[in-house]
Every structure is written in C-alpha cells, then in structure tokens.
C-alpha cells in the first residue's frame, strides 16, 4: 500500500497516522524511516506461490503437532491476520476440526514508540482462552525480530500457552534479537537498503510479495 506524495513514495501500512495538514503548527510532517524513494520494485512471489507456500506450511504445522488438537493460530496485526485465517482454513480442511484464530495487536508492546508515527491500536481478540494451548504466531515478514519480541510479550499478557511457535511467510534475515521462525514460507536474502512487502488480497487487493529497492541504494 503506497501513496505517491510530492513525487515520493510514503509507505503507509495499515494504521499509520496519515499525513496531517502541513500548515498546522504543532505537527511535524512526514516520517523518518517510513518512506523512501522507490527506485525499483521486483515481484518475488505471485498468488500461486503464496497459495502453495501456505499449503506446505499448513502441512508442516499439522505434521509437527501431529494433528490440530489445541492448536490456535494467532495473526499479528495487520497481515498476519489474513494469513492466520488462510492457514486455519487449510488445517481445518486437512484435519476436519475447527482451528481458532486470534488477532494480536502489538502496538502497545513495541520498542520504537516515539521514533515514528504511532500506528492505530486495534483490539486484541482471542475467541478461546489460550492457556495450555499450542499457539502458532503468524506474521508476514520476519526481519529484525523486534515485532515478534513485542508479540510474545503481548501474548503472555493474554494467558499462559503451553507452547508458542513462529510462522513467517517470508524471512528476509537481519535479525537483531535471538529469534527464529519455526516455519518459513520463503527465505529471501536482502540488503538493509531493500524492503520486502507482502501484499494480500484481504488488505491490499492483490496477493504478491515484492522487493523494493530505495533510490539511495541505487545511486550509492
């Protein structure tokens, strides 16, 4: 989800406070680290690739858990949520049981508050008690690991699961914390100057994974 603005692209993920009126006095315009000149965009996965990756991941989860007993998918807002629903749907079809999906908002647990626009906080919703459940955290892109750290803190405030595992559609490397994924859809080696975006039908109207290269990286 990108908007062209004054000739530059400002990344606008779900919930980012949008641009405010520039003439207003006590606001600072735009953002740091949230936008950059996009020099190049390369598609790494299409709809079929994503569908196949999720099908394989569903099988892996079922295999590892020997079924779907006590399994809960918890999607990390925003794009982890539709992914969790798709995975739960796959697993339900495979195993013939209903698999609940939780929604986790990690905004209140982030460690970068004040460094950028505060994203809108959404209610965290769990249809079932997660005490003693096997929780599979679902996120779109695994990068520094900081979001997952926040997600685990948020999760622990909601109950005491028996087991927590991590599933990411894309692992782009560059971890800053001792965190790894238990299930990975696709490993994509990247440079720091690049960005991986997962776009999903439910949020963005299209299923794809793209690699963005910033202008600085190109000219450098």
């Amino acid at each position, binding site marked *: 989800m990108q908007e062209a603005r004054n000739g530059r692209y400002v990344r606008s993920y779900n919930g980012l406070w949008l641009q405010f009126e520039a003439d207003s006095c006590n*606001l600072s315009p*735009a953002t*740091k680290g949230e936008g950059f000149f996009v020099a190049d965009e390369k598609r790494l996965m299409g709809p079929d690739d994503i569908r196949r990756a999720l099908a394989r991941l569903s099988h892996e989860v079922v295999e590892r858990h020997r079924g779907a007993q006590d399994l809960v998918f918890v999607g990390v807002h925003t794009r982890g949520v539709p992914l969790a629903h798709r995975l739960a749907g796959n697993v339900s079809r495979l195993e013939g049981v209903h698999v609940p999906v939780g929604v986790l908002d990690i905004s*209140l647990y982030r460690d970068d*508050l004040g460094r950028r*626009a505060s994203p*809108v*906080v959404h209610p965290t919703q769990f249809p079932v008690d997660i005490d003693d459940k096997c929780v599979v955290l679902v996120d779109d892109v695994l990068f520094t690991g900081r979001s997952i750290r926040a997600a685990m803190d948020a999760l622990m405030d909601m109950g005491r699961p028996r087991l927590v595992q991590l599933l990411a559609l894309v692992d782009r490397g560059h971890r800053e914390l001792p965190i790894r994924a238990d299930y990975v859809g696709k490993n994509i080696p990247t440079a720091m100057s690049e960005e991986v975006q997962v776009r999903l039908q439910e949020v963005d109207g299209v299923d794809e994974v793209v690699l963005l290269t910033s202008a*600085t990286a190109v000219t450098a």
Partner: protein
Amino acid sequence: MSTLQPVAEPKVTQTGGQCRRHLLDLDDFSPQEIEAVMETADGMREVLGREIKKVPTLRGKVIVTLFYESSTRTRVSFEQAAKILSADVINVSADSSSVSKGESLLNTALTLQATGADFLVVRHPHSGAPYLMASHLERSGVINAGDGWHAHPSQALLDMYTIRRHLGRLAGVKVAIVGDVLHSRVARSNLWGLARVGAHITLCGPPTLLPLDLLRGAGAEGGAYLPDTVAVETDLDRALDGADVVMVLRLQKERQQAGLLPSLREYCRLWQVNPKRLERAKPGALVMHPGPMNEGIEISPAVAHGSQSLIEEQVTNGVAVRMALLYMLAVPGREEAQR
C-alpha cells in the same frame, strides 16, 4: 529500515516520527487523525476490559498533571490512562506547590520540564495558558486538559468517541449543545471536532450565554469563521428538534449572580433538558454531560439517570480516549531529542 532516506526534515519533533507533540485543541485535527484516535480508543477499551489492566507502552515516561483548577474526573482519568500505559505520574495541584508562592506558570512549566517530564497535562483558568507553555517548552509535550473558556480537546474526543460507539458514525449526526455556551470550553472543542468530521451542530442557550457574534448570526461579520454546519438557536425545543445527540453543559450558579440570568427558576423552565423537552429529539437520542452536573438545573435527574443517558459511559470512555491520546502523542526519548 534505519538506512532508508527520511522523506522530510522534521519540524517540531527533534527526531523524525510523525508525532503530534502537543494536544492543544481539535482545530488542527484532520478527520483522519480523529478517526485514528477513535480506532485506537477501541483498542484501549479492550485493554481496559482485561483482567490485568496494564501494558508496558509508556514505561519510563513521566507525565505530570498540573491543575490550576479543581477537577476530579479529568485529572483522575488522565492519571489512570497514564498508569495503565505504565507511565509514571506526578500530580501537581496549584494550592500545594510553589504556584501558591507566586511562581509564574511559565517558570513552573520550565521547572517541570527540567525534572524530566515528558508531558505536562495542564488545566488552567486562563484561555491560552497551554499555548504559552507549548511555545516555550523545548522538550516536554503539553496536553490541554481545559483552558479557560477556550478548549477541552480530550473531553470533546471522548464525547465524539461515545457518540461514534452508539451511532456508528459521526458524519451527518445532529448534535444539540445546550446551556452556557459562552463560557464553555467543552462546547468550543466539540464544535471544532464535530464540525471537522461532518456532524451538524446546534448551539442553544439563553441569549446572554451565547457569544454575541454567534447570536447575531452567521450573516454578521462573526459567522464566517465557523463551518456552515453550525447553527445557533435560543429556543430549546427548536434546537432539540430531530437531534441525535443532546449535549448538556454545566451552568455555574455564579452566572445568575453576575446578572447574566434573571433567575435559575426561569433558566430551568426554559432551558433545562427534562423528559418532556427530550421528546422533541429523535427517539432514543443520546444524552451527554461533561460533568459535574447540577441535577435539577441544566438537566433533570430523570434524564441524567434515564435510559438515554450516557453520562457514566462517558467517564469510562474518557480513560480509553486519553490512553489513545497519550499513546499517540508519545514523544521521542531524551537522547533522541538531543540529537
């Protein structure tokens, strides 16, 4: 993404980050920003519903409430919001501090900033006091918790949030604001906020409790600064006609003593919101009051505690909305500010 190029040099905040540093009034809020506050307040209500009402969001932030006027609900509401978000809260009231020794507002504010306060939540009897502070503070953010007759933005946002929760929208909603409009910061902030999201507002009160420029109508020089969705009415029945929401303002009894009203009896008869008058509004119209109420004066007990009253829910929503505001205002840490 630390290596990505910033899109613009920040103006107010020392680091980047699209942060609003001060909350002074709603006049500079965009509809999107108001919507963002409303949505985030939903998320905060979820936290309020948890068994353990505590999240680590504002750990290490210091929030000072500085009240030059007595207040229970606003101060407690901010304090609770800050504590649920794990901020440290220090309460300063004017009568137990160096304020009573004659220290000026500005010096008090600078002192509190020097002690490391990230936010000053200020209430002051003089309009514009938060602007004075904000224009001289380099590091602390200023949150206006009510200044004179001018503004009370967090109250207006919680009023709007309450309406939105019940009606599902704000655009096109017809709101009657009834009572002492002239002296009301709540009316003023609601006016800006509600107008910004497309609500229709009717201000109603005795002619002596309406600003003269509004009383003389939009045709006069005055009206042009207001959105055209604002109407002024001195007749309560006409103001309530078809209203979705009735917002009742507090009437200070001193107004009668100051000669602005002939008698409280006459005020009650003509402008009190009671069950009979409320029939003019839409069936099930929402009734709100910023508190504290003078039951039997501006609002009858039957309405204040009736089925249409949201007055208690306003208080609960106040905590959620103020959590949302504190969260969204989160300032950069001190090291970053020095950079």
